[in-house]
């Protein structure tokens, strides 16, 4: 009987475990996590913060799922090291496994700042534990400062808004959501945040904090001082590669994996999710794509290859849907590409931007215009020649863009009736 170990019980880890179970009904699967929880939805923590979701609603699967599928989840168990065939926990147990997956995800990136660290009111926003701590600490008279206007920083801002007196987000770049939005779309989002009581300070960052046990104020690069009763560090995340490095695997920002199989340079040790360097099928570059669907797909691919079944990964691209205070943002693919043209349509409360290169759709940004966005995503993923389509691409997309044959194939999967 095969024995599999998975380090990290989140998007990539759970999807690997589920896939392994469908491929091999007899194998033994152990998931290790240093968190105290069964696998939960990491993106849901901002909804927990603002009380839209309760603590018992964060889980990806009901707890009997793991007994039913004989997946052993070892919570509160940090793995200290892995090697081909063995795994050592921090408690000192050494266990034998046929194949091991590293699904260790991301850790917060914290830039150096003077006098920021040990105080009780400094938070990150990556785990349920931190969200719980933040929720317990936040009081209606407090001024919150968040460093970083990326996805995680803005989700923290939205979650905190109803709990405190004021929320100010400080961002070093000259726009909000700098890694997914173009300038114009970012302006719209910023105005919307402002209208909902979240102030954003751009082109600036925190350099120093006042207060020993508790932070009371922060000083910005511009010299400005902000009152601060709680500080959230959300500058960014970086891949958690500690175990891979200890195992002697190649790491270059993210863990290096075989792009087809997800195996690392250490035989029998695989890696998937936020901790790896993914291959972007749109520009051929290797990069960190720290998004949920990507982690799930890579976890599945790893499972097939760990079980010895041939299965090539289809490759990555970014696709992301989020909303902030009711403004829907949906983005996919590249935000800029050399030699690309941008098709734009704007109107009252919505905006659509499609990036076209070599007659292929390579990216989009949709604000309050995500209807049937999956059609665009499929055009990007399948690199469909836009000359084969009919109709205006900027209209709400649909299957009528395709020829009748293609459309019928998509709808019937070849079934004739």
């Amino acid at each position, binding site marked *: 009987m095969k024995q599999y170990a998975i380090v990290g019980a989140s998007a990539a880890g759970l*999807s690997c475990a589920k896939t392994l179970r469908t491929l091999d009904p007899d194998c033994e699967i152990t998931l290790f996590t240093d968190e105290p929880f069964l696998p939960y*939805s990491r*993106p*849901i923590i901002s*909804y927990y913060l603002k009380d*839209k*979701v309760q603590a018992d*609603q964060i*889980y*990806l*699967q009901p707890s009997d799922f793991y007994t039913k599928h004989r997946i052993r989840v070892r919570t509160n168990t940090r793995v200290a090291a892995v090697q081909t065939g063995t795994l050592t926990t921090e408690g000192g147990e050494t266990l034998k496994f046929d194949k091991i997956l590293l699904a260790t995800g991301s850790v917060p990136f914290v830039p150096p700042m003077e006098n920021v660290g040990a105080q009780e009111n400094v938070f990150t926003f990556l785990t349920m534990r931190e969200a719980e701590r933040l929720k317990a600490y936040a009081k209606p008279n407090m001024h919150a400062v968040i460093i970083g206007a990326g996805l995680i920083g803005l989700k923290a801002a939205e979650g905190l808004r109803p709990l405190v007196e004021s929320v100010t987000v400080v961002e070093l770049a000259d726009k909000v959501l700098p890694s997914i939005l173009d300038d114009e779309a970012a302006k719209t989002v910023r105005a919307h945040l402002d209208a909902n009581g979240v102030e954003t300070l751009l082109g600036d960052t925190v350099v120093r904090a006042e207060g020993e046990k508790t932070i009371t104020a922060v000083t910005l690069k511009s010299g400005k001082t902000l009152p601060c009763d709680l500080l959230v560090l959300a500058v960014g995340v970086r891949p958690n590669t500690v175990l891979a490095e200890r195992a002697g695997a190649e790491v270059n920002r993210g863990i290096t994996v075989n792009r087809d199989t997800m195996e690392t340079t250490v035989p029998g040790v695989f890696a998937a999710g936020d901790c790896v360097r993914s291959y972007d099928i749109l520009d051929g570059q290797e990069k960190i794509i720290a998004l*949920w*669907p990507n982690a*799930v*797909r890579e976890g*599945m691919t790893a499972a097939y290859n760990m079980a010895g079944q041939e299965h090539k990964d289809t490759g990555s691209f970014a*696709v*992301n*849907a*989020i*909303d902030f205070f009711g403004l*829907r943002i*949906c983005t*996919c693919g590249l935000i800029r590409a050399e030699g690309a043209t941008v098709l734009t349509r704007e109107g009252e409360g919505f905006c659509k931007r499609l990036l076209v290169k070599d007659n292929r759709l390579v990216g989009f940004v949709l604000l309050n215009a*995500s*209807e*049937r*966005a*999956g*059609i665009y*995503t*499929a055009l990007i993923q399948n690199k469909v020649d836009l000359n084969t389509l009919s109709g205006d691409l900027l209209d709400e*997309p*649909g*299957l*009528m863009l395709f020829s*009748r044959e293609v*459309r*019928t194939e*998509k*709808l*019937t*999967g070849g*079934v004739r*009736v």
Partner: protein
Amino acid sequence: MKKVIAREALCLDCKLCEVFCRTAHSKSKDVVRAHLYEDPAPVARITVEGDILDSVAVNCRHCDDPACVNACITGAMHKDPETGIVSCDESRCIGCMTCLAVCPVGCIKPGRTAVKCDLCQETGEPACVKNCPNRALVYVEVGGDAQ
């Protein structure tokens, strides 16, 4: 599993499938009340695309390897291993629309939660199929990974 298959050549663009889908997913289950008086207004999970010259009804394919389920960030979207039906557990959905962003036929509707076809699980026969006047929609066994 059994799926709803559209026969494009027979579609009249009458949109009765939309009407009866909306009614089947309403509180009152009454055509008139569902259309005029319910708040929130019930949403049709099938959409007739095109125009009078060429139209086709599009709803969920209950895919064997569903992109929406793989992308769902909360576990709300799931495929029933016995029936093969892909549905959204609305009590766990946060309405992020990641599923919508990856569905290749564009059949998920935005709302407070993701809204999509559930093949009328409760009644056993999809309302769209039952009420199509020209049999442009049929409910047939098509194989796939759930029988």
